[in-house]
């Protein structure tokens, strides 16, 4: 009754059929055709990949983008994007283009160092660049073109006082003329940055 190995052609064919049929069935099962809404979602995901291939986060004395930098770092980590933190120092027309502006440069260094810290925290590679320009908006547009950026990220407008408009002329120009997508992060309760919080609380009381 008992015996050693008994290999037959029929047995081999059945064995291979079992393994093949089970494998093919399960493969077919886990690959269903996407539904209409899934196709929409897939398209949106592809858009995102296109959107975040190369990111530029813009800083300037007028634009505070530190919270956008954190967002950019998170995006870059997930999508393995190229990330550039760009600080633009606007040189007034009353000064020569190569005029030294140590105070502004010191502030820029702090902003870019903070950006690097954020990038390190998320484990993404970040290039930083500080440039002098006559106009922030034109400089950003030029750099975006050179870098073939997919997305420019900007923070809120920051000035000495709140003018009633949440976006400055610079931000409006960038969003109007950029060849790529622009993401503008205006912080909640718009203009909060520009409003004296204590005075507001007093007024609310």
């Amino acid at each position, binding site marked *: *009754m*008992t015996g050693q*190995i008994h290999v*037959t052609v*029929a*047995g081999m064919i059945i064995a291979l059929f*079992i*393994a093949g049929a089970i494998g093919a*069935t399960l493969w077919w099962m886990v690959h269903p055709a996407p539904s209409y809404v899934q196709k929409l979602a897939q398209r949106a995901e592809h858009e995102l990949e296109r959107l975040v291939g190369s990111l530029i986060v813009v800083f300037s004395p007028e634009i505070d983008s530190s919270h956008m930098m954190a967002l950019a770092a998170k995006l870059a980590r997930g999508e393995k994007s190229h990330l550039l933190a760009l600080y633009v120092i606007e040189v007034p027309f009353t000064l020569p283009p190569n005029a030294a502006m140590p105070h502004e440069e010191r502030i820029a260094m702090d902003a870019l160092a903070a950006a690097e810290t954020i990038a390190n925290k998320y484990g993404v590679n970040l290039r930083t660049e500080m440039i002098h320009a006559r106009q922030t908006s034109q400089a950003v547009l030029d750099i975006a073109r050179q870098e073939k950026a997919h997305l420019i990220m900007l923070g809120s407008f920051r000035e000495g006082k709140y003018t009633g408009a949440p976006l400055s002329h610079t931000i409006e120009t960038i969003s109007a003329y950029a060849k790529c997508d622009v993401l503008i992060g205006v912080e909640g309760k718009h203009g909060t940055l520009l409003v004296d919080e204590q005075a507001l609380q007093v007024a609310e009381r």
Partner: protein
Amino acid sequence: MSLEARVVEKRKPQLRRAVKPWGSFAWGYSDVGADIFVGLGLVLGAAAGASNIAFLFAGLVYVCIGLAYTELAATYPVAGGGQYFVLRGLGDIFGFIAGWAVLLDFTIDITLFAWSCVDYLSQLVPQLLTVPHPVTHFVVVLLLICGLCLLNVIGIRESTAFNGIVSGLDVVSETAILFFGFFFAFNPQLLIHTMQTSWPTTFQLMNGVSLAIISFVGLESISQAAQETQRPASIIPRTSISLILTILIFALSYSNLALGMQPWSGHGAPPAPMMHGHNVPLWAYLGNGENNGKAVAVLASYVPFYGALAALYVPLLGSILLLISSNSGVFGSSRIAYAMSTTQLLPSFFQRVHGRFRTPAASIIAFTLVAIVELIFAALPSLNTHAAMIYRKFFHGEDGITFLGDLYAFGAATSYSFVFIALIALRLYDPLSPRKFKIPFNIPMQIRGERVEFPIVGVIGFIGIGSILVFTMITHEIGRFAGPAWLICGLIGYLIYRYRKGLPIWRSQRHNWRVAQVDILRASGELELMDEYTNNLRESERRREEARQR
């Protein structure tokens, strides 16, 4: 209604749709996949050389059942399964009977699989064997059932991920066993010889067929999880068809391998199959009372090369899968009872939720007690010699696991019969609901101005499962009495409950199924089907209006 109230109403908690294709398959597989671990030995013991034919017959009926469940679950993706389909297609009283039969199956599920789980463990721990240690076996099974009840009351349940891992391991393991078995030990001449020399009597074959159906019970689980499945109308047909094919391939392969395999006697192999000091064919060894509860593990140990490894882990993997299946009986019974209670087919007692654990504790405990009664009834002949004599006199001396198998087959055959009728009724009376999956081979016809398709497979399946029900009644002494007794007791209880509540006794309550269907499709995220359904309704109304004007 105030805005806040509306917001609160909208935020009512719903089951999260997190089950993906593999998860849905795993829910079904952890229930049906365990059946072959129990069914193989029982069928080999009953149908001998025609076990493969018994599995083939039951398998063909199972394909029809699977197709019916697939169509219905994809059309009505709600947690309720067969009971809901019958309620919707045939009305309250038949919904109750089908649900009550499913409840019998779930309670048997608890006991049968806990019993078999201990049998498989006994392959590694001989102290758990039924024959020399019936008391230990009984106590361990009882403790397992009580433990599962407790876990379900406090709300701990195995996760979809755990089910998925165990199912994946088991699919790979069973495929490997069959691959090595067929490749290195299958002898077609031996298969033909066994079929010729050990062909059973007609009675034995009917008995084998009625037991073979238990290897295919549990498709219900995929329907049960429909409400938690992503895109159920698209995913469930795939997972159901995959499950049907996988289980069919396993059942037919195991039965043919058991009949035509030459046991390995090389290095690492167990002793040759022997009974009473004589060599016996492998199939007879697997089907005897000692091994029929753990046949897959014993067969695996005789597979060349792979058997040595399989002998170590198959008993453990099998027992885990069987325990999951037993657990699915505990929560499945409470879930069905809860659903039946919400549609006023059972008293509101079954809706009671535990104050602290937020689980339907009353249902869980009630049906666990039923399972314990069934366990006592099954274990009695091995525990007490007087009881054994009574069983021998009245029930042909069936052993405990066969008794449980009888009832399991009865409950499954009854509920499946109703599901086939419900399928036909819903095809005729609800042709407007979009069917993403439709069983092939239909006869087109017109009923009340609507084009309907009469399912031929539904009729074939009904005849098939009806014949298995008849085989069960003819061949199983206990099943013949205990099964119908369960149904009659339940029906009496149902009639009393409906009478006391002032609800229609023989007729159904009013249901607005059209509104319900829109809600079901919206809740399941099948928005395209929802649009199709509302369009179908609009078109139907327009046609009727035109007919009236003419």
